[in-house]
Structure formats: C-alpha cells, structure tokens
C-alpha cells in the first residue's frame, strides 16, 4: 500500500500489531471496493484464511434503498484486522455481524467507520470477542452522521469475554453527529464465564473444556442467524465453533 505507515496516534491503528503490519505493509493491496447499487440487497460472509497475518481493508458504498450485510469471523493466529469504511445513502441499510476469536499472543481487531451521509439510513453493528491466553481483541467503531442525515438509526453492540488473566479487550464506539433527529445507540461490556453456569453444565456431565466451549457458543449465538444461504451459515458457525474449542 502506498499510504504512509500509520502510528499509534492514528485512532484506527491504536490497538494494531505494528510488527505484523510492518512486515506486510508494502505488499498490502489497495482497499477492496464494494458498491451496492440502489435497491440491491447483498450479503457477504468473510471467513478467515489459514494465514498468520490477515489484513482486510474494505470500502463499502451503499446506494439509496440498498442493503449490505457482512458476516465476518476474525481468527488469525498472529494478527487479524478487518477495517471497514462504509458510506450510506438515503434509506440504505448496513449490518455487520462479526467475531474476534483468539488465544496465544494474537491481536485481532475490527475497525469500522460508518458514514450516514443522507437521511433515514440504518446501521447495525454486533461484535463479539472471545479471548484467551494473552490475546487482544478490539473494536474501534466510528459512526459519523452528516448534517443532512436526519432520521439516522444506528446501533453498536459490542461484548467481549475474557478467558484468561492475560487477555485484553478494547471496545471503543465513537459518535460524530451533525444532525439533530437521530438515534445512535451503543453498548459495550467485558466479562468472563459465569462459574454458576460452568458448574451447572459440569454437574450434567460435560467436562470443563466442553462446558466452556458450549457457554462460549451461547455467548456468540445469534451472530450468524441471518446468513441467508444455509451452507454458508453452517460453514461460518462451524468455523467459529472450532475456533472456540481451541481456546476453551
């Protein structure tokens, strides 16, 4: 990528793994561009590859009355970054359902900017992070509402589950609003597995690792429910389940 190498002062790179990024920076392709034409309804399912470092920069433009839904699973073993820059036209919709799942020393981040440029667009972002070992999982999400974008309806729901003392979660929703008739909701929480739930599951016969994996599946439940294609839905759910089993 020809852009200058970022620094920590760049909000979008605040939690990045700079060593991993440096190694691939020059080879990074220009951001992928996705245009959703007016009235179109598009879903994409992004599965992780086997690469230790995976960086994905995507710009999405959603035209009037169009809808874009992205399902993303971020599980790279060293560094996984999904960066999205979304612009929304009048009456358009954008939804992101994403999970960071990692252990070891991995750094996983989902960085989004959603620009509501015109009236009556909606955006929904649901991000779940499950982090074991010394992993770091972050969500940095900016919602920018332009002066003309009245009746904007935006929501960010961010939850993280930490399995070990060394794991870290960062949740940073950010709002920049220049219109006055808008609804921008955001919620963030960081927690750990509930010992009462674990004991209940174990008392029914599940061994501790199976009990943890099941509770974690429950934690991310619902993320993939809206994937329209059944084979794709099962594939992303199964990939997420295997990632959870590894760290549970």
């Amino acid at each position, binding site marked *: 990528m020809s852009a200058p190498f970022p620094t920590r002062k760049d909000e979008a790179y605040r939690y990045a793994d700079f060593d991993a990024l440096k190694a691939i920076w020059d080879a990074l392709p220009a951001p992928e561009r996705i245009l959703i034409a007016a009235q179109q309804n598009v879903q994409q399912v992004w599965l992780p590859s086997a690469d230790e470092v995976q960086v994905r920069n995507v710009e999405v433009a959603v035209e009037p009355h169009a809808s874009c839904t992205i399902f993303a699973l971020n599980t790279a073993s060293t560094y996984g970054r999904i960066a999205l820059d979304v612009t929304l036209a009048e009456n358009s919709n954008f939804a992101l359902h994403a999970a960071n799942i990692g252990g070891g020393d991995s750094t996983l981040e989902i960085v989004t900017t959603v620009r509501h440029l015109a009236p009556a667009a909606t955006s929904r972002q649901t991000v779940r992070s499950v982090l074991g070992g010394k992993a770091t999982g972050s969500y940095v999400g900016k919602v920018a509402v332009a002066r003309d974008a009245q009746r904007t309806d935006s929501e960010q729901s961010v939850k993280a589950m930490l399995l070990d003392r060394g794991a870290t979660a960062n949740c940073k929703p950010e709002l920049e609003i220049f219109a006055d008739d808008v609804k921008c909701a955001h919620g963030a929480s960081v927690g750990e597995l509930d*010992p009462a739930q674990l004991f209940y*599951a*174990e008392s029914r016969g*599940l061994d*501790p690792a199976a009990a943890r994996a*099941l509770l974690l599946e429950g934690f991310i439940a619902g993320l993939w429910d809206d994937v329209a294609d059944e084979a794709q839905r099962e594939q992303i759910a199964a990939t997420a389940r295997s990632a959870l089993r590894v760290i549970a």
Partner: protein
Amino acid sequence: MLQIENLHATVADKPILNGLTLNVPAGEIHAIMGPNGAGKSTLAYVLGGRPGYEVTQGSVAFDGRDLLAMVPHERAAAGLFLGFQYPVEIPGVSSLQFVREALNTQRRARGEPDLSGADFIKLARAQATELGMDPDMLKRPVNVGFSGGEKKRAEMVQMGIIQPRLAILDETDSGLDIDALRIVAAGINRIMRAPDKAVLLITHYQRLLDHVKPDRVHVLSRGKIVRSGGPELAHELEREGYVEAAA
C-alpha cells in the same frame, strides 16, 4: 448406594456440615428436612462437587466408590444427578443441545455409543410430554425466560432424559403450584422409583412427601442429622415445627 460418613464441610471457611452421617440404600427414597440454614443446600452442593464447598473431614461413597475424589462431570457419568434449587439460565444454548451434549458425554465416559439425533429428539419430546411441558420449549435457551415452576419441570425433564441412578433433588418442590407439584412428583416416582435407583429429596415442606412417599425422613439441624424416622416423621415436623421435633 450412597453412604455418607461423618461429613464435615465449610463454605468460605465457615463450618456448615458438622459430622453428617447418612445411608441411602438402592431402591429407597430418603427425605431431608430442616430449617433454613441447617445445611441442606450445602449438602447437595458438596455431593455435586461445587467449587467453594470444602470437605474437611469424613467420606462419601457412591456404589462403593469414593465420590469426593471425583470431579463434577465424573460424578454425573457415575450416575449422580443434582436437581438445582435455582436452575441456571444459559443464554444462547438450547435445552436440546445442552442435554444432548451432556447425555452423550456421559455415555462416552461409560463406554457407550452416542445417541443419534433422531433418537435423542424422540426421547426428549417424550420426557417433556410426560412432565406436561410443551416439547417446543426444549428448543429455547436453557431455562431462559422460564418461570420458577417451569425451571423445576425442566430439571425433571433433564433427569428423565439422563436417567441417573442417584438423584439429589434440592427443593425441587419450591416455586410449584399444586398441579405442577403433582406432575413433578409423578415424574420423580416414574423416573426414580426402581430397585437399582435412589433419591435424596431435600425439602422444607411435607407437601411434596404426600406425593413422593419417602422410605425414610431425616431432620438436618446445624449441619448434622438429629433425627431419623419413617414417613410419619414428616407429619410430626409439619405439626410441631423443627424446634420441637429436633429437641
């Protein structure tokens, strides 16, 4: 089947059980009654192996095996079922998935093959129907949004699917109206009344014992059994209260 010998246990370093001795033979249902704070739930949790419930002295044998040496899921695989006073909610995990994984993990631990999906669904639906629960409720997340009574029924559905050899039922009657109490009691009798099974019923009230006839009734007070008797003891307790009966 269950032999508890001079059991002492603490919770957060506070002694709760103080030399409890109890023997429940196969084929019998025993009731443990006692006032609040006597140690009833602590006994249930100690038998289930809940972390934080520390055994400081004594022994518990289940079919001659040292129960206290096993971790909770090994106790379950050995045939122990703990019915919770407050069944736990698990969001995002359906009851069907939860119980199926639990049952199949137990079966594997005993060297038995997994139950197929179709056979499991059939079994689960049958048990739910027996307990007057809409089988579709099993598709919902474990206990989430259930009323107190529904949770207790759901516990009995799980017990019916798992078919344990020894059930420790901690206040399974609390939160039930009269009709639900009858159904749950019929479930306990149907699932657990057998020559090779046993039940320890922990309860405050005699009313459950009108429907599930105990072979023995024990009074627990300050962490030990202070009286034992036949089913008539429950009536005496109901009439005279724990203070009189334990004196």
